[in-house]
């Protein structure tokens, strides 16, 4: 993978985004590092509340402040630190160099403007073109994202389109200024599986033709396997495992990643029982001492309750945040289940 040897397009270093609310401080993102290289797709996977969406909002500087605040860290993009530049410059980057699509295309589109108006708004804001040219480009974008009858659709309102079509419009809007990075936050979660397949295929082919990078945020390991080059697994505001997609699925080193993979049923493999991770994600106001996964981890012992493990390079290009990943390796070799079957226990 020679493309990974290029300079990173985005470099996130020790990013901390906290929310100061009445009940205390929510450390939504708490020291996250990753890079996105030109032309690659970085998958970010994790469950609700792990901080995967807040990381992306931090890159776009869309975290509402107050209560949110980027507390520390750097987000390097094209030689600049996005956490430091003035809002006016950030606005030029947003929608032009970095764009974003969201889970709910209906709530992200303005219901009182036609889809054409909304795509044209982005084009006219960032490129010096007149209305007529903007409309021509909008129609061209709609064609590229596979919307039938684009000349007609351009004058329709969001409610006249289906969920899949709306997500296509969102993608057209996001790509209208030819961004270097597209952040996709659960773009297919609200869609049916046959429509999801259409959208993922579209994103993959557009990525090729535009040569852009994608940051794909999802809870669905299937989507991750499908589109990512590299993956960051997040848990409780931290990256717990970070490597290329094949290695991650072949050789997951963090007990959480292992648990996630074994807790989903596979179509081509029959198991009697799923390996469920016990308990649930702790409240961000009440994270445990030491490793944040220790409340649910079957391997947790002494040190895990006292000291937070670092994100350590376990093998070349494979980072993991766990004190006991080598012990996990042994258990995997013996072919045992890690999450012991505890029957109907919590």
């Amino acid at each position, binding site marked *: 993978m020679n493309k990974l040897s290029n300079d990173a397009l985005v470099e996130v270093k020790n990013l901390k985004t906290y929310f100061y609310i009445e009940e205390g401080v929510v450390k939504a993102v708490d020291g996250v590092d990753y890079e996105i290289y030109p032309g690659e797709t970085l998958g970010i996977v994790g469950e609700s509340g792990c901080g995967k969406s807040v990381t992306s909002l931090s890159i776009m500087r869309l975290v509402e402040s107050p209560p949110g605040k980027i507390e520390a860290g750097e987000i390097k993009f094209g030689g600049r630190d996005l956490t430091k530049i003035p809002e006016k410059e950030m606005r030029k980057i947003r929608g032009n160099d970095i764009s974003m699509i969201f889970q709910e295309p209906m709530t992200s589109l303005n219901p009182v403007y036609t889809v054409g108006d909304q795509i044209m708004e982005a084009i006219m804001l960032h490129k010096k073109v007149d209305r007529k040219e903007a409309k021509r480009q909008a129609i061209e974008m709609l064609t590229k994202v596979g919307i039938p009858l684009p000349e007609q659709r351009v004058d329709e309102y969001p409610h006249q389109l289906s969920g899949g079509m709306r997500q296509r419009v969102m993608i057209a809007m996001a790509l209208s200024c030819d961004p270097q990075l597209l952040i996709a936050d659960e773009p297919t979660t609200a869609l049916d599986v046959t429509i999801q397949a259409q959208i993922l295929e579209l994103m993959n082919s557009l990525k090729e033709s535009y040569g852009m990078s994608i940051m794909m945020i999802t809870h669905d390991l299937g989507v991750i396997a499908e589109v990512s080059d590299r993956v960051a697994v997040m848990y409780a505001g931290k990256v717990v495992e970070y490597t290329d997609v094949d290695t991650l*699925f072949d050789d997951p080193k963090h007990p959480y990643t292992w648990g996630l993979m074994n807790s989903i049923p596979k179509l081509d493999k029959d198991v009697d029982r799923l390996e469920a991770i016990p308990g*649930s994600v702790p409240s961000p106001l009440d994270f445990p001492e030491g490793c944040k996964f220790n409340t649910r981890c079957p391997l947790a012992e002494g040190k895990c309750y006292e000291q937070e493990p670092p994100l350590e390079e376990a093998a070349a290009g494979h980072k993991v945040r766990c004190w006991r990943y080598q012990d996990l390796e042994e258990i995997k070799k013996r072919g045992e289940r890690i999450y012991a079957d505890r029957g109907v*226990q919590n």
Partner: protein
Amino acid sequence: MAENLLEVKNLKKYFPVKAGVFKKTVAHVKAVDDISFAVKEGETLGLVGESGCGKSTTGRTILRLLEATAGEIIFKGENILSYDRKQMRKLRKEMQIIFQDPYASLNPRMTVGDIVGEAIDLHNLAENKKERNEMVRELLEKVGLGSEYMQRYPHEFSGGQRQRIGVARALAVDPKLIIADEPVSALDVSVQAQVVNLLQDLQKEFGLTFLFIAHDLSVVKHISDRVAVMYLGKIVELTDKHDLYNNPKHPYTQSLLSAIPEADPKKKKERIILEGDVPSPVDPPSGCRFHPRCPKAFAKCSELEPEFKEYGDGHFAACHLLEE
């Protein structure tokens, strides 16, 4: 062979579309349009399909939470559509439902003890308060929640725990049939597995029969014995789960299976990408309802509706291609 616990025959559920000053019925949403299937005692039948295919309406119509437009629902040999209110109330002890949204389906002002105990009270299943509380305690333990939770309120629980409370409530009346309507789709991935395992354990312990409704084919395949695939108000295919996965006969099932992203980056699947969207059930396509999106459709498909019939060993499907 186990007996059929539930038989659904030619079930239809139409919702009127009203318009104008006099609220005249101008059309019907044919949410469920002539479907038939049976659920055997002790088995899990999965009902799978995309949004708007009528799978939830089917579940609710079976429980008579919605009144059927036509057809028969035969439970333990009797057509329950002819039951009056009183008979129905008794029957509800035998059939229970678990809902998708564990946040909306529990009364926020009731304690967990009362939520689970309400059905015990209604059906007079306990002699006195002490016995009732003992039953509630036992139920909570069965679903993996300690009895110390009895005095707590739903907001104090996580999504997975709430779904366990919903399961305990369904179990309280010792039902035969449980209709589980997307019971894990609102839960986090790691918690989904807990609830799926719980349902399987309880099925073994109490000999329950499940109608498991979901859009996620992997989960449905894992938990079910047989699977029925719905598309736009119709069942298009019904068979044993292994057969469905290894030998899908209907083009819709084939594309549905191929569309699922699998958690294996090395496996590059031959995708059958369907064109367009699911049409509106108000004005469904003529002939086979899948024909406008079907990659294999031919002339006959738009003219004649294919019959839902058996193609060997309990494998049912509705497709003209199979008749050739």
